[in-house]
């Protein structure tokens, strides 16, 4: 007779805890508790306690307590703290939509979490932009929508901050980068997947901190928060600094994670010479992030400390220009952080849609690298109106020079579409539109970089037109291109071709109608950050506002097309575009193991026609849910 099997129970094993509260709810509750704990800590040591209860130091420490509570509640307790101290228990499994509202280590889930944060922030900031445009339909002297001018100025600041820090910096890197870089290099997971799973939960913290900061007091200094104005502004500035710091720390972690994954997790045969273009773009962008995000976070911390103690670092007793230089040292590389993934995605999509070899691929990569090198040498062109004369020529020279490597992306893209068999579908249309828009942005940049012209157009709507053309035209249009391109992979379904094309063309026309007029308005004398203006400009302002409302509608249309496709579009196979890169090799959907067998790469992803081989040696059977 067989002996009954002895069961050994490890003392540290806990039975699976039945979580009664969803992670986000628990996170919010613990955040509230954390805020009160932090505020009470300050209350206890405050010599004038109680008047008021929430002083600025209390708001800061309370916020820190809230962030700790939030992160713990959302999943860091079970997944980071408990393993650190040796408490093990079964990780709860979430299925369906619930897995996006909890801690996850799957890079595909994290990527979608980042994308939702980005798109949500885009919606908030876009709605604010619509409010700004309503306000600007009336020349004044009284404001019509906002009660006070500082409310309008605060709206402008929130719009800019959310768009730059949580949309433009995050969508391509934290969002699409997290999802597709491991797939593109043939990896099942990223190197730092655990901390990445926590880092994404800093995004709602940052976005809400910025969006709700006016509750503490309207701050007027704009997304650049120039000193000494920021020191003098009401308390809302505190949550600007902290919110932006939270978002940037999240981006920093993403960048470190993706660089390491590209360095060390490439599939066999995926040599540096075969690295996909989008990965080159993300690599260069992530390197820029690693260099410059610590600089700007440190600058904000110094500014916050200088505000709280207070110190005189950036006031008339100190050196205001120091802050401006510290800001733009980051601020200019930031715009390349925003646009480099877009330049890379053109070179990713066009070869597939044209079924043609990527032309002069090495030149494209050199372009990305030289933009990286030059990006830190041009920041002074934001400061022509307050720098000393001897600095002007140098900054102007490097600003002209950086347009050359930026143009290499056009060289490769145009060389690829020439003599191709270009399928004019929605991703292609968005890429071509993006190339046109970014070019207009770049060529108007030539004007802004010219110092005598800069003296006139600096801080006018001309500059606002320039950077909306580069950012929306470059990054947002390319982001939409990438979203439509990868939608079959993200959702397993295809969008409606007619409505997709309609949305693309509508977005392009409304965008150009709106923002082309900004250049005229700027030359005509319209400054930035004003809700009222001399009456002679009302015609143009009204025309722009109408265009802006139509542009907002076209973005909503795009959202509807994508949502409809995701939920009930026709199902498609793993590779509807006949692409060659590795993400088309797997059929997996989010939450599943990407590659059952790691593919082995044997040839370039970007060579078509005679003399090309299949890029992958073994096509692994990957598990996939076809539903």
């Amino acid at each position, binding site marked *: 007779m067989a002996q009954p099997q002895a069961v050994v129970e490890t003392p540290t094993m806990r039975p699976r805890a039945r979580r009664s509260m969803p992670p986000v709810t628990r996170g919010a509750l613990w955040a509230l508790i954390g805020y009160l704990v932090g505020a009470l800590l300050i209350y206890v040591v405050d010599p004038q306690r109680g008047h008021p209860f929430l002083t600025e130091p209390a708001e800061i420490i309370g916020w820190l307590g809230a962030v700790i509570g939030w992160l713990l509640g959302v999943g860091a307790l079970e997944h980071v703290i408990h393993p650190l101290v040796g408490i093990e228990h079964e990780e709860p499994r979430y299925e369906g939509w619930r897995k996006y509202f909890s801690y996850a280590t799957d890079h595909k889930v994290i990527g979608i979490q980042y994308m939702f944060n980005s798109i949500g922030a885009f919606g908030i900031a876009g709605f604010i932009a619509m409010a700004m445009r309503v306000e600007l339909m009336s020349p004044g002297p009284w404001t019509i929508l906002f009660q006070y001018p*500082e409310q309008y*100025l605060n709206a402008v600041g929130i719009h800019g901050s959310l768009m730059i820090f949580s949309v433009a910096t995050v969508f391509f890197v934290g969002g699409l980068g997290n999802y597709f870089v491991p797939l593109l290099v043939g990896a099942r997971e990223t190197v730092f997947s655990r901390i990445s799973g926590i880092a994404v939960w800093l995004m709602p913290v940052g976005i809400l901190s910025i969006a709700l900061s006016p509750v503490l007091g309207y701050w007027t200094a704009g997304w650049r928060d120039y000193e000494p104005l920021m020191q003098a502004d009401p308390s809302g500035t505190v949550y600007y600094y902290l919110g932006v710091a939270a978002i940037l720390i999240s981006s920093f972690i993403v960048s470190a994670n993706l660089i390491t994954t590209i360095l060390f997790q490439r599939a066999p045969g995926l040599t540096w010479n075969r690295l996909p273009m989008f990965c080159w773009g993300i690599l260069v962008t992530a390197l820029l992030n690693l260099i410059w995000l610590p600089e700007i976070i440190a600058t904000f911390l110094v500014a916050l400390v200088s505000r709280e103690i207070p110190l005189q670092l950036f*006031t008339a007793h100190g050196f205001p220009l120091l802050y401006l230089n510290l800001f733009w040292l980051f601020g200019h590389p930031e715009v390349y952080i925003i646009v480099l993934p877009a330049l890379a995605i053109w070179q990713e999509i066009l070869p597939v849609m044209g079924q043609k070899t990527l032309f002069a691929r090495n030149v494209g990569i050199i372009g990305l690298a030289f933009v990286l090198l030059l990006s830190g040498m041009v920041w002074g062109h934001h400061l022509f109106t307050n720098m000393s004369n001897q600095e002007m020529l140098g900054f102007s020279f490097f600003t002209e020079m950086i347009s050359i490597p930026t143009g290499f992306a056009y060289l490769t893209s145009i060389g690829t579409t020439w003599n191709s068999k270009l399928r004019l579908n929605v991703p292609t249309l968005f890429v071509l539109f993006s190339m046109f828009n970014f070019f207009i942005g770049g060529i108007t940049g030539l004007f802004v970089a010219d110092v005598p012209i800069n003296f006139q157009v600096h801080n006018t709507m001309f500059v606002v037109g320039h950077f909306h053309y580069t950012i929306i035209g470059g990054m947002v249009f390319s982001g939409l291109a990438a979203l439509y391109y990868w939608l079959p992979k993200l959702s397993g379904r295809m969008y409606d071709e007619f409505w997709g094309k309609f949305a693309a063309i509508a977005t392009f026309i409304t965008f150009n109608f709106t923002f082309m007029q900004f250049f005229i308005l700027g030359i005509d*004398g319209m400054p930035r950050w004003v809700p009222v203006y001399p009456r002679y400009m009302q015609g143009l302002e009204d025309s722009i506002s109408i265009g802006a409302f139509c542009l907002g509608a076209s973005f909503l249309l795009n959202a509807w097309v994508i949502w409809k496709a995701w939920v009930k579009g026709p199902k498609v196979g793993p590779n509807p575009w006949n692409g060659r890169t590795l993400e088309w090799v797997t059929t997996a959907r989010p939450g599943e193991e990407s590659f059952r067998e790691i593919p082995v790469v044997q040839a370039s992803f970007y060579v078509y026609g005679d003399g090309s081989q299949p890029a992958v040696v073994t096509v692994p059977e990957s598990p996939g849910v076809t539903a």
Partner: protein
Amino acid sequence: MDIVIFGILWVLLTGVAEWGVHDWVMHGTYYITASNTAVISQDAFNFLLFAIAPIVVFVVLAIFYPAVRFHARRGETGEAPVQKRFNPVMVWTWILVSFFFNVFVWVHPTASGLQAFWNAQTAYADSNPLIVHVYGRQWEWIYDYPQYGISQAVDKNGEDILVLPVNRPVKFILTSGDPFHAYDSRVDVIHSFWIPAFGVKWDVIPGETRTITIVPNKITSTAENPRVRVQCAEVCGAGHPYMITDLRIVSASDFAKWVAWEKAHPAD
């Protein structure tokens, strides 16, 4: 063959574009130029317009021509018929042309325009310029004419006003702060002294003194043309949108009359 068609289209459309630019330049791109600095700025702007027209046409054509000429027909599949990985002539021409174009526009109109601007600063420094001390504070521009003993120039309604004689160099001394009230200057913020019709702005930084010399060359006023005004061009708080003053450029005799009037009616 496609290259020939592309070339012909490029030349034709560049011709159209240059004709359009010429038309715009003739109408005056800057709407009004009322000083030497505005002329320098506008000249640079106009030159760049002419210079970029062929480039704009080239790139826009290169983006959309393949979409029209080389697109896949409905239902057509398969790879492109011609596969070219590299074309040294095209690549090196592109790199060299873009390099030399950028160096060229850096020399002219950037460096040459700056040269003209700096020459104007130094040339007029010794020529007995009119001195106007501009104080920028939240949210007011205060104009002090030390040579005439006018501590704050105001109009009949008590609003600050800047009045300048035509064709005489005026040296603006820009500082931050209110000269009439004692307070800690740590609360001062950055402003930017901008006159749209003069084509130039210069930042006012707390704790620093900056100068800029301009020669107005047209008799005009805010009432005649609203672009002739002073407006703050750097966000400086809630009152930033309202930090505007009128500007009048008058003949020498009218200026003398105005000075006399100001001295007879001091601001306080």
